[in-house]
């Protein structure tokens, strides 16, 4: 099956499983083998074998995503964490059908600041590179953390469109541009790290899909390149193709682009610029379980 058809097929499998998930039979919708992820003991006796990095623009939900993979996010009662201003390090044991894998994961802060650059310099070099990267995107629903930052964004958008011209679509278009620029920069660093390396993998986790579940196919076509490179392809696809062309399809055989949601949370940017969550908790559990399966599958290879 052609490269991108595989990626698209996996997206469809994950989305179908979530669609089938119900309150009584969440497990029935699980499309892949059961995988567990748990933190290693406080005093680990063995060193982690697989280095993994979680990247993405600020406010995409990287910290929550990894917490969710570890089973730390309670869908009934969870208080989202504040903005991460340092690199978070996790030592995790992933249990798969073929055994256990010890993984060291770093969650790189999204904001362009010292911690992010340090992490790129230290962990994305030829001598020390991640075997796998989970890059988190969110279809333009990034959280802008501080109220004065949100106001500055609104004021700037209003200055070119008029205050009545700023709506969710305008804001999302702006956020998608930011997300693309961040992905482009991440790819530049990955090219350094993965040049000529075999057996590396990439997962693009399209997070917060509870906010756009009915329109998820649009997101799928934005993030997953089509076989045959159509002219209307998104700029994101072009950047992704460029990375894979540089690293080599043979070296980067494992690529997955999957929808995921960790927590049903209404997106509120400002009065009138908001979007309600549109899926049920069992579907969220199914999506997280599917992503966990993909991570386990890739780490175990």
């Amino acid at each position, binding site marked *: 099956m052609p490269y991108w058809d595989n990626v698209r097929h996996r997206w469809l499998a994950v989305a179908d499983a979530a669609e089938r998930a119900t309150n009584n039979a969440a497990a029935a919708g699980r499309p892949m083998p059961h995988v567990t992820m748990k933190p290693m003991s406080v005093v680990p006796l063995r060193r982690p074998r697989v280095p993994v990095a979680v990247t993405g623009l600020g406010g995409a939900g990287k910290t929550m995503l990894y917490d969710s993979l570890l089973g730390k996010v309670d869908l009934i009662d969870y208080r989202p964490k504040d903005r991460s*201003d340092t690199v978070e390090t996790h030592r995790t044991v992933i249990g798969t059908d073929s055994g256990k894998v010890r993984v060291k994961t770093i969650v790189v802060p999204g904001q362009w600041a010292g911690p992010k650059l340090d992490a790129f310099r230290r962990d994305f070099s030829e001598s020390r590179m991640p075997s796998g990267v989970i890059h988190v995107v969110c279809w333009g629903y990034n959280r802008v953390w501080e109220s004065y930052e949100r106001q500055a964004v609104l004021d*700037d958008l*209003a200055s070119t469109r008029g205050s009545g011209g700023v709506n969710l679509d305008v804001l999302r278009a702006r956020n998608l541009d930011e997300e693309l620029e961040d992905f482009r920069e991440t790819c530049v660093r990955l090219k350094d790290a993965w040049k000529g390396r075999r057996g590396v993998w990439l997962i693009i986790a399209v997070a917060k899909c509870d906010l756009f579940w009915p329109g998820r196919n649009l997101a799928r076509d934005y993030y997953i390149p089509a076989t045959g490179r159509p002219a209307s392809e998104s700029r994101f696809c072009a950047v992704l193709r460029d990375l894979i062309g540089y690293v080599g399809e043979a070296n980067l055989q494992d690529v997955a682009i999957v929808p995921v949601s960790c927590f049903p949370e209404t997106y509120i940017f400002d009065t009138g610029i908001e979007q309600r969550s549109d899926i049920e908790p069992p579907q969220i559990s199914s999506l997280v379980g599917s992503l966990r399966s993909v991570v386990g599958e890739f780490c175990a290879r």
Partner: protein
Amino acid sequence: MPDNNEMVPRESPTSGEDFEIALLQAESLLRDVDRSRARVRLTQALSLGIPLAVAVMLTLAIGAGSVGALTALILAAVCAALAALAVGWLQLFILVPAVRRIGRDERAMVEITGVLRELMGTVSEREGWSASRKHLARTRIARFPISSRGSR
């Protein structure tokens, strides 16, 4: 009656020049914060060093000379009082104002750079910045912390 959009004059969009002025201002604050932090570290070192030096010198002086117990006690008390005065003065007039200054400047700096990080993409696209200018601006912004860390 004119609608609200016409009554309120539309703000001009953030320009590259505005961006540069704000970034220069933040860089100036960063220099001030770094200077204040160095002063705090020096003051902390002196606050430890002065009593230590006084104690060592006192021990040597008492050990070397043939002073009586009462004289040694009075000498020690006087030296301790002087050392405490010196340390108190350092804390009150150097350390506390420096820590306050760091907090104030850092809050302003973090707020300015937080806004600049959010606006850089739209400003650079609107004004058609070159790749090297974007890279330079991003690298300059990356020197700033994401949140205040106080006098540490």
